[in-house]
């Protein structure tokens, strides 16, 4: 990546920041939702399941638009956040992270849910007979055994989050240094008559980053599985 200029570096830094914040924000929620979908039995569970997976099938632009309506400065949630906490989401880096989080959420939930389904309930029963109450059991047994899935979910969501485009540009716009992540920078470069070289460099950067992310995920999961004795 010789000759990368400030535009690439900015976009790379921003992409990493947005992806990291999005994962940090959605991971605890994804664990909770995965737990609800796997363990809880309540009416409307199928509907809830479908709702969680909606971003997978919706056009990303539509997701961004819905976010804009809800979290925009005058939206019901966005307005409340601004007046109570002074938090601005639309057209900010945090907003880009939120849009990315919503888009990658189903991926994360799927990976975590899969690992939770593989946790042997018998081990939780054993912990129970040893005096561990519900929260204790979850923290000391269920969570460690889900760790490969949680890591896989986080890394996959991170890698996918680096490249989130439609929802980000719709909700957070394309502000250089604020919301112009790698794919947005790439798109912008492609629109510019002199941007071919920059676009190519950004594309190669994205590819390298994506590959690195997937490899890291695989290695991490293998390592944790070994530690867990599987």
């Amino acid at each position: 990546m010789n000759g990368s200029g400030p535009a690439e570096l900015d976009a790379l830094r921003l992409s990493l920041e947005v992806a990291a914040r999005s994962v940090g924000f959605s991971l605890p929620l994804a664990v909770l939702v995965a737990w609800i979908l796997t363990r809880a039995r309540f009416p409307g569970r199928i509907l809830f399941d479908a709702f969680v997976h909606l971003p997978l099938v919706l056009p990303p632009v539509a997701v961004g638009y819905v976010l804009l309506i809800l979290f925009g400065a005058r939206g019901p949630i966005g307005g409340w956040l601004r007046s109570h906490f002074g938090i601005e989401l639309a057209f900010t880096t945090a907003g880009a992270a939120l849009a990315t989080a919503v888009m990658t959420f189903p991926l994360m939930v799927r990976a975590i849910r899969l690992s939770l389904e593989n946790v042997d309930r018998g081990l939780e029963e054993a912990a129970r007979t040893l005096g561990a109450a519900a929260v204790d059991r979850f923290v000391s047994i269920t969570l460690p055994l889900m760790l490969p899935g949680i890591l896989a979910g986080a890394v996959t969501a991170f890698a996918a989050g680096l490249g989130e485009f439609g929802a980000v540009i719709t909700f957070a716009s394309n502000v250089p240094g604020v919301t112009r992540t790698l794919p947005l920078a790439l798109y912008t470069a492609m629109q510019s008559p002199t941007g071919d070289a920059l676009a190519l460099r950004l594309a190669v950067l994205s590819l390298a980053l994506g590959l690195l992310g997937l490899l890291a995920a695989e290695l991490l999961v293998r390592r944790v599985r070994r530690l867990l004795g599987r």
Partner: protein
Amino acid sequence: MLQVSVVRKRPGFCLEATFAAPTPGIIALFGRSGSGKTTLVNIISGLLAPDAGEVRLGDQVLTDSGAGIAVAVERRRIGYVFQDARLFPHLNVAGNLRYGERRARAARQVIGFDEVVTLLGLAQLLRRRCRELSGGERQRVALGRALLAQPRLLLLDEPLASIDAARREEVLPYLEALRDQLAIPMVYVSHQFDEVLRLATHVVLLEAGRVLAQGPVNEVSLRPELQRVVGPDLVGAVLEGVVVRLDPDSGSADLAVGTGTLQVSLRDVPLGSRVRLQLLARDVILATQPVQGLSVRNALASTVTAISNDDYGAVLVRLDVGGETVLARITQNALRALNLRPGDAVWTLVKAVSTRGHAFRLAAGP
């Protein structure tokens, strides 16, 4: 005292069991697979709820459907050693052992970490990962983990079932040590009468979700219901005696049983120890006159007390031998030839090698 009286009905299986057994001691739940043994221990542990009924341990009510009482599993302090050990794969052996210990802090400590490690021979295993353990080692770790949670009752659900017959000796002596050295009552699920004979103080005989018989092992061994579970070949009286003479050269010992003595082949037991053994009914020979020139070591004067047909075409003769009851299984032809009737005096012949004995000593209560 452990008192259980529960009903649990599910399509295809109905459990309706009532028993009471003294504690401490090992209470065996004995029956074929599908007789409801595991369901019953799960109800005692609280992992399953009965449709109706009560479970009491000592003066504490654990479950009482009438009064709406159901103590949570994690607060029952009932240890459970599962058939498949269920060790936590993300923790090593020491981590598994400490798991229960940490959560038992509030409870009065009955047994400490070092004591458990010594008692179960776990010192070499502490840093090992669970998947590296043999089946017998796994069960010992599971046993130690349950003990360190300071249980008031320990449930063992066929802990030897997933271990090769040859490797059961990796676990059985440790179970005997627990029984003899700790005052923790245990419920031991098994479908092998050998294990019951070797370990249990009290047996609850289960069939199709119902209790067929219950009581001390020697009493239940004489019950006709036992034959329905173990089949005709493994029926036989269980006797308890004290070693009064040892002959290490020939590997034989004399046991004081009732008012007489019985010569048996037995090694590695100290003089004066209490031994329990079973005389299989099919191995016992009856004679109406004193016999000579036979290799049989024991010819015991006895009286026929009852004769009954077993359900397999043969006859079970019940004998009083010096105040103890012994069963003999003979054919109809033999019965006719000897013309036996209740009250007749006969000689009961027992080969010293056809008895199986185990040293048996029970810890005193706390």
